[in-house]
Each structure stands twice: as structure tokens, then as C-alpha cells.
């Protein structure tokens, strides 16, 4: 009874993973097919010409540069904003906290179209024209929420007594922030920066309405898909997937190493405590 049920579970898990991953494999495979259309059947032979075409396309390079600039801008703004929001909300309680929390989480749910249009109209009223700077501001408005949630979760495990001890021992306010609170928050801030970076690269809805005439990679891919597709898009897709996979792997390895170090430290502390008794 249990065995068949577990077996079904394993099968379903594998099927689900195939459903998630096969489309990406098919798409990547089409990057190597020597056919004018992006497809894997019929297979017309292996080629690397789509990668060469991609390399020679100047629009991709501009779009790539823009994407990185926007992402860096989003990280630079959303990390301090999200962290400040988390510290603030962690220190208040009652009805205000619920209202503020609701406001800070809401942008995650607001459709990107709405964020894009409202950002465009607001800054346009202030005579700030559209362009990638507005894309940055629009994206920050919801990406800061992710940073806030991550930092807030980390704050739950923070011992505020440490700050009080530091203050009692004569530390300045800036020292309390820099030497005690921020070091505790660094893992969450790092994760927040990584998520902000990738969310920004992914973003389409906000960027589409605020970008003016500038390209980012997602907008470029989108316009390419709408107007005559060639497998250069698949080549670009494969490269992007590989880059994100490597980044994800580095992030994961780093996370596991940190978790191990922290576990070891805790074990040390426990041993020391036991030795004292």
C-alpha cells in the first residue's frame, strides 16, 4: 500500500521535473540545428552559426549593456531601501505595523503593467521623460519588497541584547549599525542583492512601458520573437540559461558552505558551554 503510493510519488516527481526542464532542453537544442526556423525536428545537422550571428549583432550588445546597468541600479537602490523598510517594520508593532507591512508587500502582487504605467505617468507629470532610469525606479518599487521580506526574516533571529550591550559599553550609534546589526544581516542582504539582480534582468512589464526607446535583453528577445524569429534567439537563450545556472550553483554552494560554517560554530559554542558546566 505505502510502497505503491511512494512509487507513484516518485514517478510524479520525475514527470514534474521533466515538464519543467524538457522545454528548456528543447529550446536550447534548437540553437544547434542548421535550420532557418527555431526547431529540433527535422534535425538538419549541427551548426554553430547562430552563435556567430548572435555575436555579430550589435543590438544584442547594447541591450546586454543596458540590462546590466539597470540591474546594478536596481540593486543599488532596492537593497538599502528594503533593508531600511525591514528595520523600521521590525521595530514597530500594532495596527501601524500591519498597515505598513501590507503596503510593503502589496507591490509584489500589483500587475507589472500597472507599475509601469503609473511610474511613467507620475514622472512624466514631473517632466522626467521615459527611459531606463524610470525602468530602474519602477522595478525598485516592487523588488525592494523581496529584499524587505528576506531581511525581515533574518531580523527574527537577531538578539537585540547585543546592541544594548554595545551601547552600554560605549559604542556609537554608527558602530552599533556597522559592527553588530549589519554583519548579522549580511547573508540576507547578499541574497536580497542576488534576487534583485535577477528579478531586474527578468523584468519585462515595467520595462516595456518605461524604457522609452532603449532595449533590454528581455525586450530585445520579445521584439525578435514577434518579428521574424531565427535560432539566434535560441543561442542567446542557451547562453543565458547557462549563465544563470552557473550563478545559481555558485549561490547554492556558497549557501551550503555558510550553513556548514554556522552549524560548526554553533556546535563549538555548545561544546564550550558544556565544558564550562
Amino acid at each position: 500500500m505505502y510502497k505503491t503510493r511512494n512509487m507513484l510519488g516518485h514517478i510524479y516527481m520525475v514527470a514534474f521535473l521533466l515538464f519543467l526542464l524538457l522545454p528548456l532542453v528543447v529550446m536550447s537544442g534548437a540553437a544547434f540545428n542548421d535550420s532557418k526556423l527555431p526547431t529540433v525536428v527535422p534535425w538538419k545537422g549541427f551548426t554553430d552559426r547562430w552563435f556567430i550571428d548572435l555575436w555579430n549583432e550589435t543590438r544584442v550588445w547594447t541591450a546586454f549593456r543596458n540590462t546590466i546597468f539597470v540591474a546594478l541600479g536596481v540593486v543599488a537602490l532596492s537593497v538599502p531601501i528594503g533593508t531600511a523598510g525591514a528595520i523600521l517594520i521590525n521595530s514597530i508593532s500594532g495596527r501601524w505595523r500591519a498597515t505598513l507591512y501590507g503596503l510593503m508587500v502589496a507591490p509584489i502582487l500589483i500587475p507589472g503593467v500597472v507599475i509601469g504605467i503609473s511610474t511613467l505617468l507620475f514622472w512624466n507629470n514631473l517632466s522626467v521623460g521615459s527611459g531606463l532610469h524610470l525602468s530602474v525606479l519602477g522595478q525598485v518599487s516592487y523588488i525592494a519588497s523581496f529584499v524587505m521580506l528576506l531581511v525581515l526574516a533574518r531580523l527574527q533571529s537577531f538578539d537585540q541584547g547585543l546592541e544594548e550591550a554595545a551601547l552600554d559599553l560605549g559604542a556609537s550609534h554608527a558602530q552599533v549599525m556597522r559592527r553588530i546589526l549589519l554583519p548579522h544581516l549580511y547573508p540576507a542582504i547578499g541574497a536580497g542583492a542576488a534576487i534583485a539582480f535577477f528579478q531586474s534582468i527578468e523584468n519585462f512589464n515595467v520595462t516595456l512601458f518605461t524604457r522609452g526607446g532603449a532595449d533590454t535583453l528581455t525586450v530585445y528577445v520579445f521584439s525578435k520573437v514577434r518579428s521574424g524569429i531565427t535560432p539566434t534567439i535560441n543561442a542567446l537563450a542557451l547562453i543565458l540559461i547557462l549563465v544563470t545556472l552557473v550563478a545559481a550553483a555558485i549561490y547554492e554552494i556558497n549557501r551550503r558552505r555558510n550553513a556548514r560554517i554556522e552549524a560548526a560554530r554553533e556546535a563549538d559554542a555548545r561544546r564550550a558551554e558544556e565544558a564550562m558546566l
Partner: protein
Amino acid sequence: MGEVLKRYGAGLTTAIILLTVFWLLILLILPNLTMFESSFRPYLPVAEVGGPKDVYSFGNYMNIFGGEVPMSIFGIEVLVSARVKIFILTIFYAIVVTVIAFIMAYPLAYYLAKVVSPKSLPTLFLLLFVPLWVSEVLRSFAWYVIMTLKGPLNGILMQIGLIEKEIRWIDGYSPVVVTLVYAYVLFMLFPLYNAMQSLDSNQIEAAEDLGSPWWRTHLRVILPHAKPGIASGAVMVFMLSAGSLLVPAIIGSTTGNWFTQTIQGVMLEEQNWNGGAAFAFLLLIVCTLIVVLAMWLFRVKLSDIAR
């Protein structure tokens, strides 16, 4: 508040407050208020803005009407405007996506939370996260590659003899629904998993020992416990699907238009920003109302979701 001041001093506290105010006021509240205000103003040439013709009206919202087309709602034929029809279908299919995502994610969430050995969990999660790291535009494009007329889906089906002629898959709303489910099912899976993981396995065993068949255990023990997870997953998937522009734009055909595409057309092709603002606000308010209604129906509180 006083806590912050005591710990970090006046300078840092001001910085913290200013950053938060900048975020909530300048990036969030004021733009949305501007959009709301603009949505009531007519679309005028630049020279006439602020002139006598620039008065508030519901004109932009009325634009959704006009150009009647037939539509069948639960088998009843009615005449509605083309834009209203697209709006209704967008909401309807976003709900369909949410339901399918739930049906697909539920067994897997249970499996991950209660069946699989905890040792293999990190690896499984890493694999599950891969598509999340890949851009949405590429994930939609992947399905485009699969479902094109000469694509692998038709190729395989013809190879094994299930169909004789290529089927035009990219037609109507089904390819959009499939791709949206693919894009957002993980946003259902993770909250469900979190909710189920916090359920004490002894409760399941107790139900089984007392003779409850597996389906009743799920219905009476696991489902009620997972309700907050279901709610947050459903809200997320519904809002993402209804607000998606990429997926329908890439994989939709002329017979499968999404309301976001209507907004995009008004904004970027007609360059009627106030009209676009009205439609965007309409989308936001209707989606929010549906979420509130669903939460009231299933008796979930916002605080359950935002845990």
C-alpha cells in the same frame, strides 16, 4: 519607533525613515494616485492639456464598450463589446490557470513535505528552482518552439501515429493557459509545501489508524491545514497570470488575446496614456476584488497569507 532612535541615533533613524518614505510614497503611492487621476482625464493633444476641454469624466472607462461581438457565457449567447469579452476571458482563464496549478502542485507538495527522504530535498529543490532562474520570456519562447506548426510536439505525435496532419496548437487560449501554468506553477508549489511541512505527521497517522481512507485524510486533515498556503499560492498565481503580458504576447494568437495586450495597445500603439491608465486601473481593481472575494468565500484572512 523610539526603539530605532535609541539604538541607531537621530542621523541613522532619519535615513531609515527617509528611505522607507521614498519607497512607499514616491515609488508607490504617488504614482498610483497619479495613474488614478489621469485615468479620468481625456486624451488630448499636448497644446490642449490643462485647457477648457481637460475636464474629468468617465470617458476613458467607457472606451471599453463599443464594437459588440457575440459571446457565450455558460451557454447563454450575449452581445458584449470586444474589449469586455477579452477582459472577461482574461479573468476566467487566469482562474483556470490557478486551478490547474493547484491540482498539479498539491500532490508534489505533499510528496516533498511528507514522503520523500529529507536528505534528497536540497537537490530536488535546486532542480525545481532552475526554471525560476530562467527568464520568463525564454520560458514562454520555449513553449512557442515546442508548439509551432512544424515543432517537436507535432513531430512526435505524427511519428507515433496519433495524428495524421499537423495540429495548429497556437490558437485560442489553450497555449496561453499551458504556458502560464508552466511559468507560475512553482509559485503555487512553494507556499503549499511550506504549509504542509508544518503539519505534524502524527496527525496523518492518527487519521489513518482510525480508519480514514486516504482521500478523507487529505480532505479533512491535510487540506484544512494547508489552507493558508493554498490561499497565498492561489493569490500569487492568479495575480501573476491575469497581469502577465509576456506569455500571451509571445504564445497567443489573434484568437487568444489577453487584457494586458489591450492595455499595451492603447498605451504604446495609440499613445493614449490616460486611456491606458484607465484600463490598467480597471485590471488592478477587478483583480483585487476577486482576490478579496475569494478570501472571504474560503474564510482566509490576509494575516494568514502574509505569514
